[in-house]
């Protein structure tokens, strides 16, 4: 057992004993890591505030049998603006809650790491409509984990096109032939919004797109939540804390 170095994002922390914390991190090289930060709650701790949730840090850790031990932590990006605003902080909590749930210890998942980093950067850069970044994160994270939502082709028969029957269970839009009776047809703008949320790429364009079609966006948002909760098989506690327009 030795030391190793990696960069990671703090997902959440738990108090341990009088002055320590257990820190859950998503590292770039080793997937999820659970580590003890000794003395971090004491004023004047050498870690300062660097191991607070949402911080992106460069770490040196000792390998332990059960939990690793944080030896050093240097700040790469504090994402301090997230913590200063309640709505943004709640949105970031959904992202880290989901990541904490799906990331595996000892399994490198660089796509998930980059997604989380991008999501937090988007929240840190622009408040205003943090909920839209949550909507996008839910679908993009589901995709990274292996559940990609179909919007350009029927999720069942793969016939290309803008299909308008939307199903959570079947994994996206369905053509009229594949849609089971009772599947609801939605406005094509809803499908467009779902497609925009799920497509990787520009986060900064999301709030503007959401403003253009508020009704479609609201439907797409509840679809994104249902899709992620169904396919990842869990409810996200922090979701309801995010204020929605």
């Amino acid at each position, binding site marked *: 057992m030795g030391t190793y170095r990696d960069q990671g994002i703090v997902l*959440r922390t738990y*108090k*341990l*004993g*009088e*002055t320590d914390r257990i820190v859950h991190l998503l590292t770039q090289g080793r997937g999820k890591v659970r580590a003890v930060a000794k003395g*971090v*709650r*004491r*004023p*004047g*701790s050498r*870690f*300062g*505030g*660097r*191991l*607070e*949730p*949402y911080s992106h840090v460069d770490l040196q850790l000792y390998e332990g049998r059960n939990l690793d031990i944080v030896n050093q932590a240097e700040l790469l990006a504090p994402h301090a603006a997230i*913590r*200063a*605003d*309640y709505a943004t*902080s*709640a949105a970031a*909590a*959904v992202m*880290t*809650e989901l990541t904490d749930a799906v990331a595996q210890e000892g399994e490198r998942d660089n796509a998930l790491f980059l997604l989380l980093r991008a999501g937090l950067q988007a929240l840190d850069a622009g408040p205003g409509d943090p909920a839209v970044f949550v909507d996008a994160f839910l679908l993009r994270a589901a995709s990274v984990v292996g559940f990609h939502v179909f919007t350009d082709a029927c999720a069942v028969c793969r016939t290309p096109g803008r299909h308008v029957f939307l199903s959570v269970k079947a994994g996206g839009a369905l053509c009229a032939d594949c849609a089971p009776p009772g599947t609801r047809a939605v406005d094509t703008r809803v499908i467009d919004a779902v497609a925009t949320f799920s497509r990787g790429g520009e986060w900064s364009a999301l709030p503007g797109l959401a403003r253009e079609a508020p009704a479609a966006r609201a439907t797409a948002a509840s679809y994104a939540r249902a899709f992620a909760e169904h396919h990842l098989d869990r409810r996200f*506690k*922090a979701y*309801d*804390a*995010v204020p929605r327009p």
Partner: protein
Amino acid sequence: MYEGAIQDLIDELGRLPGVGPKSAQRIAFHLMQAEPADARRLADAITTVKDTVRFCARCFNVSEAEHCRICQDQRRDGTLLCVVEEARDVQAIERTREFRGRYHVLGGAISPIDGVGPDELHIAELIRRLDDEPVEELILATNPNVEGEATASYLSRLLEHLGVRVTRLASGLPVGGDLDYADEVTLGRAFSGRRELGA
């Protein structure tokens, strides 16, 4: 696993905050070897606390009467109200002797990831107090960590239309640290240098 009474004691001790299974065992065996009078004093102290100490009906600080000593003290400045997470934060701030107003204990902090929202805290009671009492300045002294920041941000937004000045303890408090571990000097300085929020 031990049998009967000793295992019961170990289990109960193990449920205390910060006490792991190993420490629970150590404390249990320490108590078994202690003088009966010593063990009984501890048992009595626990029962007495549960029987006589409760939460103040106004500020939720610990109290032996319906209202705590601070709420009853007429010399305290009723125009200043300091909002903290836990009763132990009241003690920490009292030690600084910087503050002559009153307190409101929220009973925790907002933590979306733990499912703790505003409704789980004494926030409705806080709003009612602002109606009933001559409060002019509300000082948010939540912990300088992610939950404390979220709570302060939530409260400042909620209160911005109520015409009361809302301030936050000055930075200089160690981020990530617990408020009640801060030394008196640092905490006192944070008080005198508090800044306005939502400006």
